[in-house]
């Protein structure tokens, strides 16, 4: 499985990579600090799961989610935010899970438990 992580802040991206890699030790985890690069990657490669920030430069997590779905309609998309305010929009966009920071290994585990 290929898991894509998208997050502008490099330091937080690094933290996110370590948490996701801890939960998915067998899978390929790829991080992007630029959502445009992430989209380019998804058009050329199969991505099975994505964790993305809701608020990013150049695009939102929702817009990214739509584009990723055009590449792979079965992709599971999870969004990350500092606030709960976008949770209702996340339901509307059929987002798999909506996580509020701080990101921890436990939070990632909870996401895939359902």
């Amino acid at each position: 499985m290929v898991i894509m992580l998208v997050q502008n802040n490099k330091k937080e991206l690094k933290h996110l990579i370590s948490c996701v890699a801890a939960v998915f030790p067998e899978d390929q985890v790829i991080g992007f600090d630029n959502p445009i690069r992430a989209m380019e990657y998804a058009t050329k490669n199969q991505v099975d799961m994505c964790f993305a920030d809701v608020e990013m430069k150049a695009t939102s997590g929702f817009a990214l989610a739509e584009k990723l779905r055009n590449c792979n309609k079965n992709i599971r998309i999870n969004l990350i935010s500092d606030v709960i305010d976008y949770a209702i929009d996340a339901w509307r966009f059929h987002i798999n899970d909506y996580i509020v920071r701080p990101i921890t290994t436990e939070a990632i585990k909870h996401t895939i438990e359902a």
Partner: protein
Amino acid sequence: MNILAVDDERLILDDMKVELRKVFEDDEIVGFEGGNEAIDYANDLAAHDEKLDYAFLDINLRGMTGIELAKKLKDIHHETKIIFCTAYSEYAYDAFRMHAVGYLLKPVEAKHIIETLDALNIDWKNTGNELPKDIRVQTFGNFELFVDNHQVSFQREKAKELFAYLIDRNGAAITTGEIVSILWEDRPSDKTTLNQAHTIISSMKKTLKELGIGNIIVKTWNHIAADTSKIKCDVYDFYKGDAIAINSYRGEYMAQYSWAEMTNADLMEKAHR
């Protein structure tokens, strides 16, 4: 599939059931106004080894919140998929935390339910794929059920008898209490016999489901009936005046069951007229 709807406003609950019926045409849809009744129903399903497939829950319930109810239902049926139906957006995050699969804003419409289920990438219409079968019931002489010309053997004699009784009732719904009085003539309708009746119902449904004809049983909460439109049956043809059916009657109707004597008396009278 078993589908639960809970809303403490009767009219909204009724609307929700109408929308659910458009989506789940052949499944059992049960609605409650209160959380405690819903939990009783979930426990009852679990006691009879049945799954609760989907729960559509309002959040602002009296007594307990829909979120609390969802957790309790999940404790009983881990696999249940929870979809919240609410007028408010404020619980959207809580709904994610407890692994709900959908969050619909009222008024809930069938197309929104379908969108939500489609997004799950699962085959959610999993009971809608029963192929049409040739279902024939013989009541003259001994009672037997044939599916595609093969005689069906039920795992329990009483399950067969229950099915025979549903055929005898010609599509009319019967209660669990009535089943007890038919299957255990000499015993009172109490907790023990009602539970036994539920076991028999489950056994009968299981046999029919395995044959791919589970949809000939129509079950509502505490009532059960046979969908006679899907069944070819000699006694039904007899009453329609079909000459072949009338000629095939030899004075015996479901001969192995004593309760069938009532109908047999009627048949005998009509045959000699």
